[in-house]
């Protein structure tokens, strides 16, 4: 049986957040080597907050006050196996740290080397990273009281108005069984769909269930469909040159209702037919890449149908068009 790949991708979003009147100065301070707390309700809280935790009343940047750089650990955990999101690759502590001059504890990381170096009530002190960008990760803590070396703040850097956080999650899993059969079929030159046990309609590519009738489908429902079909809709894409764009020329992206299928296959790219002659109802045939040159790596559990990695092109069959009226149940 032809081997197929496992799913392995990282979904990332770069978040840029405005900082506002309290968090902005706090992050500016971290970038410039100072930690700020905020006087509110008769105490100093750090990290500073935009509202009084007890009353919800807005706080004022006038009440920001420098705290630390040393403080006392009020609680901690030793991270034996850091995740990819943690600030250190080696084991370290996350701790609640009540900085000198503050009345509440701030969560942060302590690079202590060994769990035995950690204890509740111990003293820790800030260290500012050489590269700082106005984020909470500009600083970390180490055991002791020794003040950090002076930080050279860039006088022209301005205040931190936004802070960036690239978030991401790595997804790793096998292709679901019905997706693996679909991908394997493409490698072997066959397009597999699934016939619903509820109404006999053929879904391609299948989601593993019939959404209309709410019925799961298994290998016993697999059927092979033709590599010939009818255009049901299309658009011409003029590639905008965004970062990472690989396309330079306009091309057609269309949906095709394959013969003997009841659902359309979307995302079919056509580059060998002019848009002036392209039309709904046109009959097309898929010209496969030679076996061994087909690539289904774009197929995932969540997306990916008849991927461009398996065909050379789609070409007109020369048959008469199908009456578009007969395709009106397939707007996509």
């Amino acid at each position, binding site marked *: 049986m032809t081997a197929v790949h496992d*799913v392995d*991708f990282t*979904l990332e979003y770069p*978040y840029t*957040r405005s*900082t506002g009147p309290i*968090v902005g100065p706090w*992050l500016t301070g971290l970038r410039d080597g100072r930690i700020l707390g905020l006087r509110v309700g008769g105490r100093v*809280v*750090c*990290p500073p*907050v935009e509202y009084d*935790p007890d009353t919800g009343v807005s706080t004022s940047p006038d009440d920001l006050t420098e705290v630390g750089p040393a403080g006392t650990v*009020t*609680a*901690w*955990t*030793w*991270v*034996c*196996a850091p*995740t*990819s*999101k*943690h*600030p250190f690759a080696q084991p370290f502590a*996350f*701790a*609640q740290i009540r900085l000198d001059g503050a009345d*509440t*504890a*701030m*969560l*942060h*990381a302590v690079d202590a080397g060994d*769990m035995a170096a950690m204890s*509740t009530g111990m003293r820790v002190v800030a260290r500012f990273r050489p590269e700082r960008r106005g*984020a*909470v*990760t500009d600083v970390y803590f180490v055991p002791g009281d020794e003040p950090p070396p002076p930080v050279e703040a860039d006088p022209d850097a301005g205040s931190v108005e936004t*802070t960036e*956080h690239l*978030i991401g*999650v*790595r*997804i*790793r*899993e*096998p292709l*679901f*069984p019905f997706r693996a059969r679909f991908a394997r079929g493409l490698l072997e030159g066959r397009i597999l769909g699934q016939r619903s046990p509820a109404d006999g309609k053929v879904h391609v590519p299948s*989601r*593993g*269930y019939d*959404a209309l009738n*709410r019925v*799961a489908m298994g290998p016993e429902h697999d059927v092979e469909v033709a590599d010939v079909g009818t255009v049901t809709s299309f658009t011409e894409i003029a590639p905008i040159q965004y970062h990472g764009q690989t396309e330079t020329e306009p091309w057609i992206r269309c949906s095709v209702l394959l013969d003997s299928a009841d659902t359309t296959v979307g995302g079919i790219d056509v580059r060998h037919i002019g848009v002036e002659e392209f039309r709904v109802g046109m009959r097309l045939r898929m010209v496969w890449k030679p076996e061994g040159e087909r690539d289904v790596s774009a197929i995932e*559990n*969540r*997306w990916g149908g008849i991927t461009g990695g398996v065909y050379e092109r789609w070409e007109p069959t020369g048959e008469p068009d199908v009456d578009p009226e007969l395709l009106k149940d397939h707007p996509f």
Partner: protein
Amino acid sequence: MAAASASSAAASAPDFPDIAVVATAQTPAHARYDGPEVHLIMDCVDQLLASTGLSRDGIDFTIAGSCDYLSGMPFAFVTNVDGMGAWPPVYESHVEMDGAWALFEAWLRLQVGDVDTAMVVGSGRSSPCNAREVFHLQADPYAVAPLGLDPDALAGIQARSLIDAGLASESDFAAVVARSRAAAAANPMAQVQASGAVAVADLLAEPYDMAPLRAHDVAPPADGAAAVIIATAERARELTDRPVWIRGIDHRIESHHPGLRDLTDSASVRTAAATLGIGPAAGGGGGGEGADPDGGGTAGLDVAELHVTHAHEEIILRSALGLDDSVEVNPSGGPLGGNPVMATGLIRVIEAADRIASGRARRAVAHASSGPALQQNLLCLLEGDG
């Protein structure tokens, strides 16, 4: 709401319209389910329709709780509607929270009075990713999330706080795990089914993970789904002989800055419990001194199903709810026995309701939690007919 209950919220539960859980369903907590989340949901919905005799279009309102970040796909929750049935078009809502919060919205929705039945689903697949690398995003986005400070890490800090305050020991954590695993062994839906008793001493011999927590102190993320149908009183009587009445649901939130919280206690659970007329303010959550044996709005709890994803949380929750030994805690094994993230809280309601429906309990509280270190807590008070 009755004036009497408004004036003494701690003494009796508010007077809500009668709404009951009429059917429940859950999948096993799979360590890994290699198929679409829709299949898991479909399985639950099939069970619900079969047990009530309802057809899909006999349900007025549908709502789900799930997490797109966990699914690794924007708008995954829309795809999930396929599992509940999107045709004919449904009246549908979604919360990006555990299914217990979907139940809260459904319960509120039925109180409007224009619809009689609601289906509630919670679902998630955690296995494709490291859930810790998702849920740190719940934390404050400026001061905490960029540190990757995930719920397990904050749980470690909370556990340390308990130890430092003299309120618990690592042995106490291990005892929670041992008891949960023993109970989970009898639960066919559990993920962790110990072949025999787990000794506290053996658990304590395991290495630390987020010290002072060990790996077994943390509920193992699982793939799974759960669902319930709730109905207004008259409709509930038509659909089941054993309705389980929802006497109240209360949801309370604490600061997202853990430094502003007392991590050794749960102020939000205490407030929610008092609002529902249970907990220490009502004279204890069980049959102990001060409890009203008739359960007339005060205590008399038989069962508490608690959303304990880290062993030490059970100790905090028992204290905040005032549970004495007469109350059975997590007889299902709880989340430490199986934690299908985004369904785990709803499953607490299901486990409690199932015990009432089967006559093994008369009054129970189900607890769901969200956010790190019990930041958000929801209590659902359930009762049988008598």
